[in-house]
């Protein structure tokens, strides 16, 4: 079982419905605050970055172009019409990996301007 399988299994347990497309694990997440609060936003992680999951967390958060973040260091995603955003997770390794990752991404989505 590869790192991305473990990742998918862990976030599936949280009801995030992961699917693999174009070297990405895509899943939907509902932010609890910010402009996107209350609606499900598609987001993804590159399979390459999950090679060492759960020991090493991914760095880049992939989001559709229409999700804009106030301060970001971004690069084009593997998925057309998406960008990947640099976000370093803090205090990794202290909590359940799936829960910690979902909480991190929710926090990032809470910063979304649109």
């Amino acid at each position, binding site marked *: 079982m590869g790192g991305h399988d473990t990742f998918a299994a862990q976030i599936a347990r949280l009801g995030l419905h992961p699917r693999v497309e174009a070297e990405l694990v895509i899943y939907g997440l509902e932010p609890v605050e910010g402009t996107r609060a209350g609606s499900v936003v598609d987001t993804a992680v590159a399979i390459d*970055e999950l*090679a*060492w999951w*759960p*020991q*090493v*967390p*991914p*760095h880049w958060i992939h989001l559709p172009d229409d999700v804009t973040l106030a301060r970001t*260091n971004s690069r084009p995603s593997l998925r057309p019409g998406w960008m990947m955003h*640099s976000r*370093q*997770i*803090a205090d*990794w*390794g*202290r*909590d*359940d990996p799936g829960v910690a990752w979902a909480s991190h991404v929710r926090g990032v989505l809470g910063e979304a301007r649109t």
Partner: protein
Amino acid sequence: MTRRTSVAMTGPTRDVLCDLLLRSDGQEDLCLALYRPSTGRRRTTALIRHPVAPNDGDRLVHGNVTVTAEYILRGAEAAHAQQCGLVLLHSHPGGRGWQAMSGPDRDTEASYANLVREITGLPLVGMTLAGRDQSWSARHWDRGVGRHVAPTECTNVRVIDDRLTITWNDGVDPAPATNPRQTRTVTAWGDAAQADLVRRRVLVIGAGSVGLDVALRLAASGLVHITMMDFDLVEEHNLDRLVGATRRDVLLRRTKVHVARREAFRNATAAHPHIRITDLSICEPAGLLEALDHDVIFCCVDRPWPRAVLNGLAYSDLVPVIDGGIAIDTHADGTMRNATWRSHIVRPGRPCLICTRQLDMGQVALDIQGLLDDPDYVAGANRGDSVGQNVAPLSISVTAALLGQYVSFSVAPGGVGDPGPLQYVLSTHDLHHLDHTSTPGCLYEPACPEGDRRQDLTGDHWGAESARAKAAAVPWPARLCRMLDDLLTAMSAGRS
């Protein structure tokens, strides 16, 4: 070259095994245990995970002890189910030190070696516990098949606890004779400790200001086998900290490990020191294999990826890692605010580097992807991280802190071993014992040793490959100058 073999276990595992093997009536006893192999470049270590306790009737105690085939089969099946190998342990209650096998011991182990290897896919490991001083001896039944099956005697058996206790096989790795240059060292801790310390295979990762100093001081104290690992070249800006390196080393594009070996040789007191260097990175699979040949590792690097690899290795393969570092803070105007240096031993029974907040796995992801060296990324990220720095007057304090931890862990002065994580604050000159504990979600410290089944974090390391390519691209005039310089150094060493 003969492959070396070894056995390692934690202190709590040792305690459980001693309870099973040392009887109050003074008779011999036996038990089984499961192990995982940890395969290095030249050494294979059996990492003991947990015992398979005997049931009534599994062995016959009659002064000596006899194992039943049913017990062996039960143990081998458990080993197979858990992807482990099997260890057959017995005690010599009146024994002291490394135990040779008696005829019946050899016959018993030989009679089950083929069967166990057939079921588990791994060699049977035999172990003997000497009751008088709790010394261990061991062998891997890894040679030949059928009637020709034979053991490879282990070099040592290591127990990792508050102190590192090693039983040495004098027949395979005899203690080198102490010489007059080591007299003062021996008076500090005695002949027995010296005979242990000098035989250990120690790996120093990072040949910067701290790593170089650690290596040469270990060499000065008489260690025979020291390996230094670093892929960096000596550069002009290293010279204010890399004591022993010269401008000539910069001009000749020497590697840091070359300089470290030269300085370690100059200071070595062993009659025949084996000081090896490698330009691998511990983040590469070959670097990890190299590390697994060692009894102790000094981590003298500050990058997150290598420290993450070592953090895992300390628990998965039971190779203790002596780690530490310095943080120098400055005010906005560039004047000095403070400096702190830490030291700790990463091992089962102590919190890992993540739990002590000495390693941020979020940064490891950046380091693996080469983003910490990517100018575009760094500019875009607007990172406020302080640049890792050290200065010669303080790097010696980090060296002292690491070596102090090592001496306590090895010799246990006054009966006190590993002191736990320490932090020294320069501004107030206070030494703090840090009260870190493992967090409930820790993936490392509570786990059984995995050995070759570890989830290791090694991979292609662009930085190491690039540095080696740079070192290999030295033009021939510089190569010629290097050869002459080496010759002069060798002649100078010969005169002294």
